[in-house]
């Protein structure tokens, strides 16, 4: 097994995390992703770039996001103390903007004038459209036709921000197909276009680059927990679709062996039903969207449709670094079903007065279970990755309300 230090330094120069990651892409993209890797490595060591990024994260996004001790919830569960890392308080309401800003600034340095993105629930699309509006870049967002229907409010937000939203009608008409279509757009407009991938998937350097932009979450958290409690948390919990908020929280803690890491996948109707989005829990290694990772596939190696109540977790793959963390045993991955997530949504809303995104509710559900098994003196930090406003329609429908 790799040593702790190796773990933090991954991926290797070819973008591999053990057997995972890499560059499984058509030849036309090989040159552009290499150009991107060079730019990313150059600017991530450039003090002027980092200063601009830090200033934007502070004044535009509102960082650092606070850590909140959820005393009511902790009391109710009666176990470990539960803390929230409040990514829901970021501009645009989720962690996605941390990465969108980083990549958009990079695009600008590279002289690209056109931004494209894929989106599932619409959070990454909104974050990208927001940043593109501010930087004066043309923006096109690919979104599965089914998701366009499910997430009308976010589609409208993107349009108000000046982005063109393209509904994708191919395949299963969801996030994976939006990613396919964005890749096709990129291949066709290589010269002026920068593709802002929203999660830690895609070909190298995306999984490493998106992780690095999201790691601000874990860096802040580590310092804040030490300030607040005098020690590191005993466990970190985050939801995992592609896995960008989870890796952003986990990565700065990888060498802190005493901190347990839990990634929570979407169990949908239940992993045993096959209707879920939990490749780490029930998939196997394969190749999708430019990297080798755990995926969901049928008996012929075709990628299969996924299910989750939360569009943001509805993805048949996962970032390759999570696959590596799973196989190396450093992180644990569990699944939380739709109904459990919705229960957690209500419970946290009622006890703490904070409404989580349905994605985040998956992490909260598992955190409550875990807290119950731990001592009161112990602590759990949950990445409160996004706010629930976008899910009002979904929750209302479940309650039988018309909005």
């Amino acid at each position, binding site marked *: 097994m790799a040593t702790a230090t190796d773990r933090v330094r991954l991926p290797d120069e070819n973008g591999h995390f053990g057997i995972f990651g890499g*560059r499984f892409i058509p*030849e036309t993209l*090989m040159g552009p992703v290499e150009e991107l890797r060079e730019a990313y490595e150059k600017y991530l060591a450039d003090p002027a770039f980092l200063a601009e990024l830090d200033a934007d994260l502070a004044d535009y996004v509102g960082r650092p996001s606070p850590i909140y001790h959820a005393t009511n919830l902790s009391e109710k569960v009666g176990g470990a103390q539960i803390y929230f890392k409040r990514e829901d308080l970021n501009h645009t309401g989720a962690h996605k903007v941390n990465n969108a800003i980083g990549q958009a600034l990079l695009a600008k340095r590279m002289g690209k004038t056109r931004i494209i993105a894929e989106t599932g629930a619409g959070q990454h699309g909104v974050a990208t459209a927001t940043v593109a509006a501010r930087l004066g870049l043309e923006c096109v967002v690919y979104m599965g036709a089914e998701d366009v229907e499910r997430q009308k409010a976010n589609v409208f937000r993107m349009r108000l921000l000046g982005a063109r939203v393209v509904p994708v009608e191919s395949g299963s008409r969801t996030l994976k197909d939006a990613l396919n279509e964005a890749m096709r757009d990129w291949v066709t407009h290589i010269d002026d276009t920068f593709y802002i991938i929203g999660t830690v998937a895609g070909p190298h350097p995306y999984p490493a680059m998106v992780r690095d932009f999201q790691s601000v979450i874990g860096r802040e958290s580590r310092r804040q927990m030490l300030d607040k409690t005098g020690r590191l948390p005993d466990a970190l919990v985050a939801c995992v679709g592609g896995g960008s908020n989870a890796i952003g929280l986990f990565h700065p803690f990888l060498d802190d062996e005493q901190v347990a890491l839990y990634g929570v996948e979407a169990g949908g109707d239940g992993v045993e039903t096959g209707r879920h989005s939990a490749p780490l829990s029930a998939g196997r290694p394969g190749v999708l969207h430019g990297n080798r990772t755990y995926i969901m596939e049928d008996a012929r190696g075709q990628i299969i449709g996924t299910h989750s109540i939360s569009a943001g977790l509805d993805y048949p793959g996962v970032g390759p670094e999570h696959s590596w963390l799973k196989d190396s045993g450093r992180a644990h991955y569990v699944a939380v079903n739709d109904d459990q997530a919705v229960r957690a949504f209500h419970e946290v809303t009622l006890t703490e007065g904070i409404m989580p995104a349905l994605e985040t509710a998956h992490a909260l559900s598992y955190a409550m279970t875990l807290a119950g098994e731990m001592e009161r003196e112990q602590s759990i930090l949950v990445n409160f990755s996004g706010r629930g406003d976008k899910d009002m329609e979904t929750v209302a429908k479940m309650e039988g309300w018309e909005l």
Partner: protein
Amino acid sequence: MSRIGEVFEQCRAANRAALVPYVTAGDPRPGDTVDLMHAMVAAGADVIELGMPFSDPIADGPVIQKAHERALKHSVGVHDVLDMVREFRREDGDTPVVLMGYLNPIEYMGVDVFASGAADAGVDGVLVVDAPPEESADLHRAIESRGMDSIFLVSPTTSDERIGIIGRVCAGYVYYVSVKGVTGASGTDWGAVAERVDNLRRLVDLPVGVGFGIGTPEDAASVGRFADAAIVGSAVIRLIEAHGDDREAMLKAIRDLLAGMRRAMDAG
């Protein structure tokens, strides 16, 4: 020498470029594929590229995406594709068949099982669109050790250094992607492509096939002037889409298209 090498030798001796049509196996129905292959050979095809259906074909434009979707409705998998090649070989022992597809279904089967099965069925070459040389050493060894050719893409964005890397593992022919884009493009500047192909020839000693965007007999003739092969995909698939319900009309339309291309190429 492989069957692919022999065909290019013959073409060179006859001072003609090869015509290489593509169809997706199982499109529009599994029972049509072998007949389509024979019809294309009868109309002048020198090599056949046979697509293996995949749920997420990121290098393909809308026309070929739909072909994959139609084939997948019939649950056509890699095993089925190999069966089709085996059936084609019962009547045609000469025309090379190149499988073109994406990595995941091959890896699911296992690269060695796939390579043995393909060689046994009579496959001559394999092109895996999302498996560049850096990531496909095992697959490449499996294909090469069974006497088949590993075919790779070169694109307008491929550096000379990478062309060198590709040239060391590529066999049979190099597939030059004529545009920055997906399959089914149009309005290509063939003069610019010819310059790139000249550069490619200086770096790699293999026949060069050009594809992506050859839609008309005029396109095929233009490409035939500077390349060793014209590869035609979406233009064929469009006819399958248009005539899929009427088998005879579909076969006739494809025969007419390819025969027209062949005539235009032979006329120079």
